[in-house]
């Protein structure tokens, strides 16, 4: 206990890291479920159905399967790098989440007031880019160390792709930084509070003046996370499974989780930079908006209860009943006056991130894959010039307005 008293920040940070990791791992698992369900609906299928109600236990079953599969290391592989690559990919993907702030409220942990988020770095945006810029190594080294043709091709492609799109990704964000004049996430969000002077109902979010920047950012972000339509590093039809062809068991699962963690990070960043982070879209004086999280969860709980009672049978019914009770209890807790202001930030933040994740899945279900030369042309000859032009015009306007 003496140690706790001496280093309060260390202990509190550790607690926050553990909580965040737990939440992140659970979210990762359920993002895969969400993706499979949504893609299935887009393709007129049903998706995971048999393990648990609505296939809700499918992620758990997948995790167990990954753990118990045989872990094969190719004899010709470079053992050290081969093991290092998935660790690097996953740990970097998760480390970037530490920089994301989830809400404006301060909470007390062990009597120490602290904010929602692990680290509040004054140059948060730069550090996030620093972490994403090393993220290339996970994929590149995996491709190289497998010592096999397809992974090498996949690794080469992906490093080329990630280097190319990282330039546009960074440039498209500079417009936002110029407007708000800060690199700190909290200040970036604070800049977006309030509404436009002339159009009162529009929130003062950066997406409106920086719409072009947002489009460039999102396209580059999809390419940076190697997702459809830019998933050339693992194009099944050409490269078997790309850079992780030789990986099996939990090492494969680590790449899989890293990909989803990157998706979440990129969505969080889009929310913070362009969509006002944890800010609610409604004017501040509308006090009824405080009830939205609680009432929304309660309504969801009632829907689930209806589904439990009418459609589910046997074990699935018990499982869904547990989820229902959870939703109802959390919804009721959100209506307690002491809790209500704290949940506002995280609620809006996670809602916006959820929308981006849905958009990711939607593009995956809709668009075909790019050809490699098209991808490079698109990145260097279209996205990069557009984001550069956006940067120059924004800089000019900011200069004129500040005179």
């Amino acid at each position, binding site marked *: 206990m003496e140690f706790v008293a001496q280093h309060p920040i260390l202990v509190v940070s550790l607690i926050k890291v553990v909580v965040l990791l737990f939440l992140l791992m659970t979210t990762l698992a359920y993002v895969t479920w969400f993706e499979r369900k949504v893609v299935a609906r887009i393709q007129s299928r049903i998706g995971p159905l048999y393990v648990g109600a609505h296939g809700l236990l499918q992620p758990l079953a997948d995790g167990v399967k990954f753990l118990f599969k045989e872990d094969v290391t190719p004899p010709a592989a470079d053992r050290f790098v081969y093991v290092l690559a998935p660790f690097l990919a996953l740990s970097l993907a998760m480390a970037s989440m530490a920089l994301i702030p989830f809400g404006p409220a301060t909470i007390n942990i062990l009597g120490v007031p602290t904010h929602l988020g692990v680290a509040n770095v004054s140059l948060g945006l730069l550090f996030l880019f620093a972490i994403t*810029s090393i993220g290339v190594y996970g994929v590149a080294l995996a491709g190289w160390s497998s010592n096999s043709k397809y992974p090498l091709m996949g690794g080469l492609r992906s*490093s080329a792709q990630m280097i190319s799109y990282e330039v546009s990704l960074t440039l498209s964000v500079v417009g936002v930084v110029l407007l708000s004049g800060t690199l700190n996430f909290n200040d970036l969000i604070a800049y977006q509070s309030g509404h436009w002077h002339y159009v009162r109902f529009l929130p003062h979010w950066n997406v409106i003046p920086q719409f072009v920047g947002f489009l460039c950012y999102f396209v580059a972000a999809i390419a940076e996370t190697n997702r459809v339509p830019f998933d050339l590093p693992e194009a099944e039809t050409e490269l078997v499974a790309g850079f992780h062809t030789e990986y099996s068991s939990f090492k494969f699962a680590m790449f899989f989780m890293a990909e989803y963690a990157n998706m979440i990070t990129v969505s969080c960043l889009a929310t913070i930079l362009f969509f006002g982070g944890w800010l609610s879209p409604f004017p501040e004086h509308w006090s009824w908006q405080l009830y939205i999280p609680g009432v929304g969860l309660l309504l969801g709980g009632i829907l689930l209860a209806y589904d439990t009672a009418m459609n589910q049978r046997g074990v699935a019914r018990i499982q869904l009943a547990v989820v229902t009770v959870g939703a109802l209890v959390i919804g009721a807790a959100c209506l307690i006056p002491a809790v209500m202001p704290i949940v506002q930030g995280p609620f809006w933040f996670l809602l916006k991130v959820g929308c981006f994740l849905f958009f990711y899945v939607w593009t995956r279900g809709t668009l075909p894959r790019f050809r490699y030369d098209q991808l490079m042309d698109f990145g260097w000859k279209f996205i990069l010039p557009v984001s550069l032009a956006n940067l120059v015009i924004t800089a000019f306007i900011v200069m004129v307005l500040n005179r």
Partner: protein
Amino acid sequence: MTLPLVLFFVFAGLAVIGALLMIFLREPIHSALALILVMVALAVLYLLLGAEFIAAVQIIVYAGAVMVLFVFVIMLLNAGEEERTNISKLAHYVGWPLGIFLTVELVYWMLRAPVGGGASTAPLAPGDPTRDLSMLLFKSYLFPFEITSILILIALIGALVLAKRDS
């Protein structure tokens, strides 16, 4: 020992180990990885000094861009293990004395340095260090800065010309 001091020794040690590994490992990719370790450890040391901007840029530019290109080229050429040769007599006879001289010199000046490190450990001036840095870079030293970028552009064009010569 305070926490920053412990962190300093951990990451300074990592930087030294990484530098040694970079020289002694024989597989090019392993050497590149060791060099990345040095870069990241140095970034953490900058962070301990309170230079957050430099730390982030160190990682973005060196670990995230320069070394990615190194690794990319090594992968592309599929370079094998390097071979040890004894061709350079110059390195053998001049290198060792020069290396020892440099070490002695460094140790000498480090011992001569005032205890506590003088200016380097002084708390940073109040204000935004990023702003101060950009003021220096884009106001006081604008001319050298622009000259450097032209230098890099020349190198880039030179590389293009050399690469295009064959076709």
